[in-house]
């Protein structure tokens, strides 16, 4: 056993080499053995056969971001790998395993001072019946990382279960050949022993976590229009909803999807759809309808590079503005953002609960990095946030759907309830829902819809607030993990850093942020945007009582803990 708390590995290959399968299998083997891990990938523009790199970080503790540099890079081949040059940083400590017939490693590797060891993976695979170079690579990786052949073979056997015993044996032979070929290669970076833990652990992607969170929160209807990088949420929900008496309907477009979930919710069934920036743009009008008619729905936006079609396969945090401000009119609603793969589950469940309780739409801003990364996490606790809509029953007299109540939430009559007939409307309405253009009613209903959100006690989940210290990092979403790690590095330098990441972006919580910022003398805002959307949002709604610096950069490259740490140390 080694002593590294965390190791990172990149597997590079193209043309059907199966690099991602190798990376995923390592994650599965490591998770089964008790480690935590995070796996993501970077790809060429082809649908099949493109250049691909699986990026894996294994650790003793949960990890939510990738490293700035890789410890081990295995190149099954290097065709077009220069395209991901910026994402696969190597350094003098890096070990590179390269197939001599796989083309030239890209400049970022050759110029880095990394140690290169050649192993002819393709040739070795040819000498095995049905041999595959990515199995050789898997064997090499397992030897270097300290896994046994059986440990990495188990996930492969599962994957190939329906391909027959020859294919499975061929893979085992390939792994063994790679394992043997790596004997004697010096590799210092070995993972420290995993923490013994008797809690169950899970392996899942942010998108899967989002979907399960919705179901835990009470969602039983989903409408689906596919869009990268959100489609997996809908594909997981389709069979899952069916198993529990729910249903997913494929829509002809996003306009239909958002209206379908409003229809379902109107009928009493909590509902969700998932999309990305372009789809959210299409859904904006109907989100206004849901706000005005006070109908709960959850819309997950798995953010990708923008604007317009943008970079569909990469992450960015640039849908903040449209999520919060996009609705025409004064239309306050809920906007939340998970902070990690595991947090996708909690935040979506909480969003569903809040939407149902407050009878308002909730937009959940996830992103491609969290959505499409796979992580080994502690099994998420069962929390009590299950959608509890206030419904009207035993109705007598004139039913007032939008009655002015003390907490702003008026009981909703579910169709089928005798005496509760009303017409839900986007038109400005009176307490009974009758359209009106009068000043009194308009003001009263605007107040109602604003106050029901503003007066609700969201509790401590509104943000994660960690650490003391007079420099505060304020960030959100998938950058939270990198910010925490940067704070950890600063702590080893003796610098105390506070990390504040709101999970609830709207309605804003000025008092809570003020209390979190008490004693802070410097504020560093970190966001993955070009235009500084988060910084502007903070300035618009919050007091920032200290000098502010902003570290913002648009996608496609993730912002690493090292970069944030540098921004901290640069500000002396």
């Amino acid at each position, binding site marked *: 056993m080694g002593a590294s708390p965390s190791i990172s590995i990149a597997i590079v290959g193209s043309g059907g080499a199966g690099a991602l399968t190798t990376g995923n299998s390592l994650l*599965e083997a490591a998770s089964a053995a008790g480690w935590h891990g995070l796996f993501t990938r970077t790809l060429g523009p082809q649908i099949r056969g493109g250049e691909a790199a699986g990026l894996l970080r294994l650790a003793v503790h949960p990890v939510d971001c990738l490293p700035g540099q890789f410890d081990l890079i295995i190149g099954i081949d290097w065709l077009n790998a220069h395209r991901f040059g910026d994402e696969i940083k190597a350094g003098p400590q890096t070990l590179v395993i390269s197939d001599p017939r796989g083309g030239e490693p890209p400049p970022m590797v050759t110029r880095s001072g990394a140690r290169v060891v050649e192993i002819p993976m393709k040739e070795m695979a040819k000498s095995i019946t049905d041999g595959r170079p990515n199995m050789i690579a898997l064997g090499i990786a397992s030897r270097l990382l300290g896994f046994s052949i059986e440990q990495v073979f188990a996930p492969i056997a599962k994957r190939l279960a329906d391909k027959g015993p020859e294919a499975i044996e061929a893979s085992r032979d390939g792994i063994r050949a790679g394992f043997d070929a790596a004997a004697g290669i010096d590799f210092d970076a070995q993972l420290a022993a995993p923490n013994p833990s008797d809690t169950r652990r899970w392996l899942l992607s942010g998108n899967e976590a989002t979907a399960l969170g919705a179901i835990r929160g009470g969602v039983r209807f989903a409408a689906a229009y596919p869009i990268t990088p959100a489609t997996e949420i809908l594909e997981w929900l389709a069979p899952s909803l069916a*198993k529990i008496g729910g249903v997913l*309907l494929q829509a002809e477009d996003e*306009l239909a999807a958002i*209206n379908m979930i409003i229809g*379902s919710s109107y009928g009493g069934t909590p*509902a969700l759809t998932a999309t990305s920036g372009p789809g959210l743009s299409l859904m904006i009008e109907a989100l206004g309808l849901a706000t005005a008619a006070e109908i709960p729905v959850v819309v997950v936006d798995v953010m990708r590079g923008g604007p317009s079609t943008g970079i569909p396969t990469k992450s960015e945090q640039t849908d903040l503005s449209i999520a919060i401000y996009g609705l025409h009119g004064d239309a306050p609603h809920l906007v939340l953002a998970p902070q990690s793969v595991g947090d996708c589950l909690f935040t979506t469940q909480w969003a569903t609960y809040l939407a149902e309780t407050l009878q308002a739409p909730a937009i959940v801003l996830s992103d491609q990095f969290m959505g499409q990364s796979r992580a080994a996490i502690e099994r998420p606790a069962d929390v009590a946030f299950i959608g509890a809509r206030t419904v009207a029953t035993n109705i007598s007299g004139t039913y007032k759907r939008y009655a002015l109540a003390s907490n702003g939430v008026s009981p909703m009559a579910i169709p089928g309830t005798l005496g509760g007939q*009303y*017409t839900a409307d986007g038109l400005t309405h009176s307490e009974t829902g009758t359209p009106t253009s009068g000043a009194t009613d308009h003001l009263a209903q605007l107040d109602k819809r604003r106050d029901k959100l503003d007066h609700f006690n969201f509790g401590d989940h509104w943000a994660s607030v960690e650490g003391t210290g007079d420099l505060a990092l304020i960030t959100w979403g998938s950058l939270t993990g990198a910010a925490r790690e940067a704070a950890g590095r600063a702590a080893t330098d003796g610098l105390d850093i506070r990390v504040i990441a709101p999970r609830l972006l709207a309605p804003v919580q000025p008092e809570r942020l003020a209390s979190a910022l008490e004693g802070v003398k410097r504020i560093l805002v970190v966001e993955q945007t070009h235009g500084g959307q988060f910084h502007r949002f903070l300035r618009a709604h919050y007091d920032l009582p200290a000098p502010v610096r902003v570290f913002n950069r648009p996608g496609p490259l993730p912002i690493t803990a090292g970069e944030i740490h540098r921004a901290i140390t640069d500000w002396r």
Partner: protein
Amino acid sequence: MSSVSTRLAHKPADYKSDLKPIWCPGCGDYHVLMSFTRAFAQLGLAPEKIAVISGIGCSSRIPAYTNCYGFHGVHGRSLALAAGLKVTRPDLTVVVASGDGDGYSIGGNHFLHACRRNIDMTYVVMDNRIYGMTKGQPSPTTEPEFDTALTPGGSGVAPFHPLVVALASGANFIARCFSGEPNETADVLAAAITHPGFSFVEILSPCVTFRPDQKEWKELVRPAPVVATNDQGKAARRLMTDDGFNLGVLYRGDRVPFQPAVGASDTDLSVLEKDFEL
């Protein structure tokens, strides 16, 4: 399918709300409202078990004038609202109300897919061949030579055949009515609601304010000269060649309605978590 009330049968007036319609006097939609309430009464449906879903336009105001559950949604999306509602609440009778603008223009795509999906609901389009609410622009069923402020001298664009589009897209029941014959219309609506799957009823409903020329419709309409067919080829020929004034049920299909199994379930959520366990 319709749900029959176990209480005393309702009178048509029981399905009307107290709200006075804003439609111009002389508007065909008054008759359509009458037909709705007569059809509901005929079927003995409980008002609280009917949902009337609409978009935007004069015709789309109808839900609030009924005593049923209603949804006045955004322009062109009523069929999507209705799909989400009916699939999760198959116990309700879902009637969707629209106009030629809301339904055939901005709602055009959803029209195709609603017919294709064949969820059990009834789609009523009050066709007055004009955008009435916004004061007189042409719609997809307006004649090309009809002069409007937006299209001086006429749009020059030919209308399409919504009934043919419905047939081609899979609608399971197709009918045309005239608002000026509210009893016949009520009968057709009742038949449409009863018929399983997606029923499409186009109601010619004159716009007294922007299409005073439509006064002549009452001379032009006639009962269709042949009975409804269940043969799509025959129906296609008939619908492509009729002059737009043949009234009655024109096509009755036998597609099975789309309705996934939904409802309470005993299955524990932990079944779903097995995907993730190591």
